[in-house]
């Protein structure tokens, strides 16, 4: 491969071919998707022994299972005999999987159990061909991450400062855990995956792209990204970034981050106060994070997205509503808000999808060759924790994404 990433990725601009070149996409699979940590799901999706769900890591078909002893595994959906798909349903419960082609049977940990008419192999127990397993699996706050590299940075190292944002999400639950049990929607976009990632923490677009929704609903979200907003965009390092809306939420009443008031979710607020005492006020005011965890996990306060690249110009975005363990009153509202914003007819996602796809068609034009990401570079600051921050609508997060991307693609980071 002869792509010179240092020429294509500059501090204030990136080259259009990064979104359209097949070779670059193929190299991304190797250097990012099949090497670094990628989020595949959440332990709550396989709550009971024998539960399984099918997942994707780029084009890899993966089965997430829970064994009798509670261990969560990620198996590759490929029979060790002739490579057939072992598992067809999207979810189910079974302690064993039997391949439909010739009946080879495996435990849900991937270990081979047996094969029919065993004399053809010299008898019972002569073969020990197991299902492939994702080499490294680890969880953080219940999110299940996969790495196809046998070694490299630990999940903790990969998450770095983004881990704290997942902690902020979990602490909104009166039991300290979130669950992703509301079911997933899949949105297919004819756009390169990086356009979706960049959009997730782009605070410049909301007032334009979502302007009509904000105006008909009277939503205050638009002003959070205005020039007068005290919110910031933060480069968390490692390609992760966030829109930190807390400076604005702190000016409001508890639960306003969620567009509701204490009076409408009294049981939840009471539980949180009983659990956290005085600190509850801060938690209820600051609310949930708006964070993009490199390369594919996006938490948009009330919704969780997992981005999956399909082709250089095609991406599937999986979306579900955050559910807070022990908070049924909140969960109904979280679900309906999620459906309204990013559901099949969701008002925010419909707008964004249109933008990703227009963006993809636009970058195919040959001139000008570059995409500009300089917004706010001159006014960036380093915050008290050493992170680079910009104004609410600056492109600080995108610049952080690209510098990490570049070091991965050049093999300087893992």
């Amino acid at each position, binding site marked *: 491969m002869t792509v010179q990433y240092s020429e294509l990725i500059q501090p204030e601009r990136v080259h259009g071919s990064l979104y359209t070149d097949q070779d670059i996409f193929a190299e991304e699979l190797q250097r990012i998707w099949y090497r670094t940590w990628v989020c595949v799901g959440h332990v709550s999706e396989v709550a009971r022994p024998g539960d399984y769900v099918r997942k994707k890591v780029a084009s890899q078909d993966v089965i997430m299972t829970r064994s009798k002893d509670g261990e969560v595994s990620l198996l590759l959906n490929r029979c060790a005999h002739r490579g057939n798909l072992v598992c067809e349903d999207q979810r189910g419960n079974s302690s064993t999987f039997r391949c439909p082609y010739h009946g080879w049977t495996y435990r849900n940990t991937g270990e081979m159990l*047996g094969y*029919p008419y*065993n004399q053809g192999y010299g008898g019972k127990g002569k073969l020990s061909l197991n299902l492939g397993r994702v080499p490294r699996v680890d969880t953080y706050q219940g999110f299940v991450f996969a790495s196809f590299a046998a070694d490299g940075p630990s999940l903790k190292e990969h998450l770095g400062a983004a881990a704290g944002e997942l902690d902020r999400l979990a602490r909104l639950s009166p039991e300290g855990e979130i669950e992703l049990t509301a079911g997933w929607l899949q949105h297919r976009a004819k756009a390169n995956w990086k356009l979706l990632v960049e959009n997730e923490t782009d605070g410049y677009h909301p007032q334009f792209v979502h302007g009509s929704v904000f105006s008909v609903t009277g939503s205050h979200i638009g002003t959070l990204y205005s020039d007068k907003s005290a919110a910031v965009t933060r480069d968390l390092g490692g390609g992760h970034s966030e829109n930190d809306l807390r400076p604005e939420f702190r000016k409001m009443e508890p639960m306003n981050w969620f567009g509701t008031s204490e009076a409408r979710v009294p049981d939840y607020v009471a539980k949180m106060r009983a659990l956290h005492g005085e600190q509850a006020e801060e938690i209820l005011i600051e609310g949930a994070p708006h964070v993009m965890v490199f390369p594919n996990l996006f938490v948009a306060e009330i919704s969780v997205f997992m981005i999956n690249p399909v082709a250089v110009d095609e991406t599937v975005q999986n979306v579900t509503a955050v559910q807070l363990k022990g908070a049924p009153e909140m969960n109904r509202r979280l679900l309906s808000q999620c459906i309204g914003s990013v559901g099949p007819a969701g008002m925010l996602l419909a707008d964004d999808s249109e933008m990703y796809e227009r963006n993809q068609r636009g970058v195919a034009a040959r001139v000008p060759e570059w995409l500009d990401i300089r917004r706010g570079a001159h006014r960036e600051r380093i915050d008290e924790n050493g992170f680079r921050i910009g104004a609410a609508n600056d492109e600080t997060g995108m610049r952080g994404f690209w510098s990490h991307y570049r070091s991965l693609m050049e093999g300087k980071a893992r």
Partner: protein
Amino acid sequence: MNQWIIASEFAEVAVSLDLDANGPRLRLEDLRSGHVRHLDALELESIAWAPDERLRELMDPSAGRWSDRAGDA
């Protein structure tokens, strides 16, 4: 007769309580082949107590239906 269907993508079995004999039995019917097996109380207790290892042996497809010994199972 109450009947439950326990099904996955791998198998489909109708489960019912059979009261036709002198004592109750559990009736299992493999809906894909029509093959039926009755289990009495003591057999069920044994399954409930069987170590995982024994169940795993049963799950080997060559243990019964697809063994080389034609006519077994």
